[in-house]
C-alpha cells in the first residue's frame, strides 16, 4: 500500500521562513485570530493571477521566522468559488509562485463542531502538521456546551487549542502550541509520522483507498507517470516530484470535473483521463453515489471523533433568533433595513463633510503657500494646478471611503450583512443579481471605488463582475457638484404638485437615471458576456456578535491606504496630463506678468487697508480682467482647446458647444474636473466651485456666435444625463482592472458607459428641444 507521507519538509528549512496557513469555514473568527497573532505587521497584496486579497503576517515563533497566511473562508477542499480555489491551491502548494504551506491551523467555530470537522477531516488528509483551534469557545460555554479539548486532541491526533479570539482568550496557549509545532517542522519524522499513523483512521471507507492505490498503479503502468527507479511504494522514489500525491488522486476521483482533476491533467497530460474515468466507474460499482459516500463517511468520522468530547447544553442561539425575528420581520425588518441604509448613506455625506472640508482647506492652504513662495511660471502652475489640485481631488474622498468601509466592516462583522442580503435577494434578482450585490451597489452611491472593492463579498464570479459593471452607474458623490451647479443655474425653482420642488425632482431623476439604466445593462450582461446557469443562493447567517475593533480598524486602514496608493498615483498622473494639455502650447509670459502684478497689487491693498485706494483697485480689476481674457485665449489655443474645437461636430448633436465638450473631455479622469475646467474656460481662472456666483453668471451669459444662449434647459439636462451615465473616473476603472485582473472589463465598462452617455445625452437634448419648440 502506498504510503501517505509524500510530503517532505523543505530541505534546510531551519533557516527558511515557515509558512503557516489559517484555514476555516466562513464566520469562524479567522481574521480576528489572524490579527491577534500577527498584530499589525501585515502585508496585503493579491495572489498572482487572481483578485483575492492575500494577507500575510510576519512573526517569530520559537526563534523561527514565520509567515502567517490568512486564507479565504471555505467549507471544504472541493473549491467552488475563486476564493476557495485560492485557499485550496495555497494549501496544496499548487501556486507555482509560492512554496507549499508547512503548517496548517484549522480554525473551527466551537458551537458548530460537528459540521466544522468535515473540513478538518479533509485538511488532515493533506498530511501536513496541523493544529486545530476551537474558536468562540466562550460562546459555546455560555450555552452550556462542554467541549473536552484534550479528548478531542487524542481522538484527532493533532494539537487542539480552545480560544475566544474576540476576547483575546487562549491566544498565548495557541502561540505556544503553534511554536512547538513550527519548531518540529523540518525534523525528519515530524508530520509524516503522525500522518501515516492516522491512515488507518481516515474518514473514507478502506475500499476507496484501495481503489485509489489501484488508480496510482494504473497511472504508472499506462506510463502516464514516468518512473525512473524503484516503485511508488518505496519510501523515496527518485521522481517524487513527478508523482502526484495521494491527496490529489483522491480529490480527482471524488470531484468530477473539479479543480483536482484539472490539476492532474495539467501535471500529467490528458492521457490520464481514460484511466481516471475507468477508476471512477469502478468506484461507482462500489458506491452508488460517490459524493454522498464522501459526505456521510466524513460525518460519521466526525461523530466518532466527537465521541465523549461533547456534552450538549441547551444548544440554542436564543438571542440571535430573537433578533432575527425583529431584523428580518416582514414589516419591521424592512423598515429597520431602510433606516440603516439611510443612516449609512446620510453619514457618508454629513460626517465625511467635516474632514473633507479640512482636506479642502489644507489643499487650498498648500496651494496658496506655493503661490506665495514661487514666481508665476510653468513650475508653479504644474505644482498648484497639476499636482496639488490633482492629489487634493483624490485625498478629499478618503474620509468617505474610510467611513463607508467602517460601516461595511461593522455591519459585516456583527452579522447584519448576511441578513441584508437575505432581505433584498428577491428584489436584486430583478437585476439578475443576488442579495449579495446590494451593499456594493449601495456603497457606489458614495463612490464607485469602494463599491467595486466591496464586491469581494460576492463569491459567484458572474454576479460579482455584473455588479462591478453597473456599480459606476450609481450616481456617486462626484456627480453631485455638477448637478448642483447646473440645476442651480438653470432649473427654475417652481413647486409642482403643491410640495415637490422642480430642482429636487430633477436631482432625484438624475439619481434614478443610473439605477434605471443599470437594470437592463445587468440583465443583458447576464444573458451575454456573463451567461451561465443561475448562481445558487446558499448563505450562512452567522450569529450576531460585537464587531472586533482591530478587524474593523484593519479593514478601514487597508481600504484607505489601498485607495490612496493605487488610485492616487494614477489620478496624479492624469491630472498632470490634463494640466499639460491645457497649458501647452502657448506663450504664458504675459499671463505670468499679470499674475505677478496682481499679487503685488493685492499686497499693496492689504498694506493700505483703511486708506482709500481707488486707482489701485481699478488697476486690480483691469489686470484680473486681462488675465481672464489671456487665460481663456491660452486655453483655447492649447492642446485641450484645439481638441475641443476638433470634437465640436461630435458634441453638437448633444446641444453642446466646444467649451462644454472640452469640459467633458477634461473630466474623463474625474468628473469634478469639469467645474474647474468650466471655470478656466469662462475666464475665471480654475479656482471656482459650484456655488460661485461668477461661474453661474458666466454660464448663464454664454452665447453661440449668433447670440443665442448656449445653455438652454435641454442642453443642461443633456449635460447632466451625460455625467450621470459616463464612466468619467480613472480611479474606478483602475479598481475594476485590479479586481478583475484584466484590462478587458475596465475597457468594456468605459466603452459601454460612454456610448450610453452619448446616446442618453443626445436623446435628452433632441427630445427636449422638440418639446420646448412645440
Amino acid at each position, binding site marked *: 500500500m502506498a504510503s501517505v507521507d509524500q510530503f517532505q519538509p523543505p530541505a534546510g528549512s531551519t533557516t527558511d521562513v515557515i509558512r503557516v496557513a489559517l484555514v476555516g469555514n466562513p464566520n469562524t473568527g479567522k481574521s480576528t485570530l489572524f490579527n491577534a497573532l500577527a498584530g499589525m505587521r501585515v502585508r496585503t497584496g493579491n495572489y498572482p493571477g487572481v483578485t483575492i486579497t492575500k494577507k500575510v503576517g510576519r512573526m517569530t515563533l520559537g526563534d523561527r521566522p514565520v509567515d502567517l497566511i490568512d486564507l479565504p473562508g471555505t467549507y471544504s477542499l*472541493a473549491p467552488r468559488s475563486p476564493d476557495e480555489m485560492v485557499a485550496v491551491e495555497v494549501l496544496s502548494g499548487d501556486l507555482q509562485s509560492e512554496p507549499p504551506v508547512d503548517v496548517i491551523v484549522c480554525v473551527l467555530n466551537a458551537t458548530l463542531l460537528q459540521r466544522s470537522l468535515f473540513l478538518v477531516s479533509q485538511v488532515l488528509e493533506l498530511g501536513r502538521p496541523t493544529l486545530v483551534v476551537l474558536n468562540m469557545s466562550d460562546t459555546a460555554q455560555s450555552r452550556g456546551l462542554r467541549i473536552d479539548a484534550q479528548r478531542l486532541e487524542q481522538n484527532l491526533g493533532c494539537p487542539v487549542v480552545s480560544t475566544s479570539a474576540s476576547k483575546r482568550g487562549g491566544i498565548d496557549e495557541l502561540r505556544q502550541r503553534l511554536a512547538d509545532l513550527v519548531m518540529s517542522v523540518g525534523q525528519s519524522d515530524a508530520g509524516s509520522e503522525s500522518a501515516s499513523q492516522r491512515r488507518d483512521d481516515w474518514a473514507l471507507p478502506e475500499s476507496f483507498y484501495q481503489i485509489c492505490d489501484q488508480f496510482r498503479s494504473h497511472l504508472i503502468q499506462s506510463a502516464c507517470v514516468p518512473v525512473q527507479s524503484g516503485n511508488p511504494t518505496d519510501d523515496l522514489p527518485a521522481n517524487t516530484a513527478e508523482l502526484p500525491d495521494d491527496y490529489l488522486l483522491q480529490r480527482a476521483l471524488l470531484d468530477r470535473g473539479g479543480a483536482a482533476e484539472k490539476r492532474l491533467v495539467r501535471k500529467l497530460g490528458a492521457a490520464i483521463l481514460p484511466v481516471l474515468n475507468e477508476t471512477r466507474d469502478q468506484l461507482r460499482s462500489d458506491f452508488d453515489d460517490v459524493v454522498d459516500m464522501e459526505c456521510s463517511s466524513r460525518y460519521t468520522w466526525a461523530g466518532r471523533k466527537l465521541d465523549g468530547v461533547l456534552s450538549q447544553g441547551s444548544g440554542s442561539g436564543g438571542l440571535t433568533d430573537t433578533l432575527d425575528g425583529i431584523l428580518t420581520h416582514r414589516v419591521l*425588518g424592512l423598515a429597520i433595513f431602510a433606516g440603516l441604509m439611510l443612516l449609512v448613506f446620510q453619514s457618508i455625506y454629513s460626517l465625511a463633510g467635516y474632514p473633507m472640508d479640512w482636506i479642502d482647506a489644507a489643499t487650498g492652504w498648500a496651494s496658496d503657500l506655493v503661490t506665495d513662495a514661487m514666481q508665476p511660471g510653468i513650475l508653479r502652475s504644474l505644482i498648484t494646478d497639476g499636482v496639488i489640485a490633482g492629489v487634493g481631488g483624490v485625498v478629499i474622498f478618503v474620509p468617505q471611503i474610510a467611513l463607508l468601509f467602517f460601516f461595511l466592516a461593522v455591519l459585516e462583522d456583527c452579522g447584519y450583512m448576511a441578513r441584508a442580503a437575505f432581505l433584498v*435577494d428577491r428584489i436584486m434578482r430583478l437585476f439578475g443579481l443576488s442579495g449579495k450585490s446590494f451593499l456594493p451597489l449601495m456603497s457606489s452611491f458614495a463612490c464607485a471605488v469602494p463599491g467595486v472593492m466591496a464586491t469581494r463579498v460576492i463569491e459567484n464570479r458572474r454576479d460579482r463582475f455584473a455588479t462591478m459593471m453597473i456599480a459606476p452607474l450609481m450616481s456617486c458623490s462626484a456627480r453631485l457638484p455638477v448637478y448642483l451647479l447646473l440645476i442651480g443655474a438653470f432649473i427654475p425653482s417652481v413647486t409642482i404638485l403643491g410640495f415637490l420642488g422642480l430642482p429636487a425632482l430633477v436631482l432625484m431623476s438624475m439619481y434614478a437615471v443610473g439605477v434605471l439604466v443599470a437594470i437592463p445593462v445587468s440583465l443583458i450582461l447576464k444573458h451575454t458576456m456573463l451567461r451561465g446557469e443561475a448562481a445558487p443562493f*446558499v448563505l450562512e447567517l452567522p450569529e450576531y456578535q460585537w464587531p472586533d475593533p482591530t478587524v474593523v480598524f484593519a479593514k478601514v486602514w487597508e481600504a484607505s491606504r489601498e485607495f490612496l496608493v493605487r488610485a492616487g498615483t494614477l489620478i496624479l498622473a492624469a491630472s498632470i496630463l490634463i494640466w499639460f494639455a491645457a497649458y501647452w502650447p502657448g506663450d504664458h509670459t504675459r499671463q505670468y506678468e499679470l499674475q505677478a502684478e496682481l499679487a503685488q497689487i493685492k499686497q499693496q491693498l492689504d498694506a493700505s487697508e483703511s486708506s482709500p485706494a481707488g486707482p489701485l483697485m481699478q488697476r486690480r480689476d483691469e489686470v484680473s480682467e486681462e488675465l481672464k481674457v489671456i487665460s481663456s485665449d491660452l486655453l483655447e489655443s492649447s492642446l485641450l482647446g484645439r481638441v475641443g474645437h476638433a470634437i465640436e461636430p461630435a458634441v453638437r448633436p448633444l446641444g453642446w458647444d466646444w467649451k462644454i465638450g472640452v469640459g467633458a473631455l477634461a473630466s474623463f479622469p474625474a468628473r469634478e474636473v469639469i467645474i474647474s475646467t468650466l471655470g478656466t474656460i469662462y475666464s475665471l481662472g480654475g479656482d471656482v466651485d459650484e456655488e460661485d456666483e461668477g461661474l453661474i453668471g458666466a454660464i448663464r451669459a454664454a452665447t453661440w456666435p449668433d447670440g443665442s444662449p448656449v445653455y438652454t434647459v435641454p442642453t443642461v439636462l443633456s449635460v447632466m444625463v451625460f455625467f450621470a451615465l459616463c464612466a468619467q473616473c480613472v480611479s474606478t476603472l483602475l479598481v475594476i482592472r485590479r479586481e478583475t485582473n484584466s484590462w478587458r472589463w475596465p475597457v468594456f465598462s468605459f466603452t459601454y458607459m460612454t456610448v450610453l452617455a452619448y446616446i442618453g445625452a443626445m436623446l435628452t437634448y433632441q427630445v427636449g428641444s422638440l418639446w420646448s419648440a412645440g
Partner: protein
Amino acid sequence: MTTLDQLCPGEKATIVRIAGVDGIASRLREMGFVPGQPIQFLRAAPLGDPLKCSVQGSRIALRCGEAQRVYLEPASAS
C-alpha cells in the same frame, strides 16, 4: 416525504436526501445538510424567498429553488 420549501415556519423535520449531484448538492452537504440530520424551517424572507432554516446549529438561508431539492421526513407528531 416533503421538501424544505413546503414546511411551515417553526416546523421541524429530518433530512432524507438532497437531490442532484452538482455543486449545490455537495455545498449543502458540506454545510451540514446530511441525511438523518434534524432540520427546522425558521422563516421566509419578507418577500417570500429566500428561506431560513437551522441545521446542525447553524442558520442557512437558501432560495426556494434550492430548498425544493432538500427532501424531508416530517417529524412524527408526538
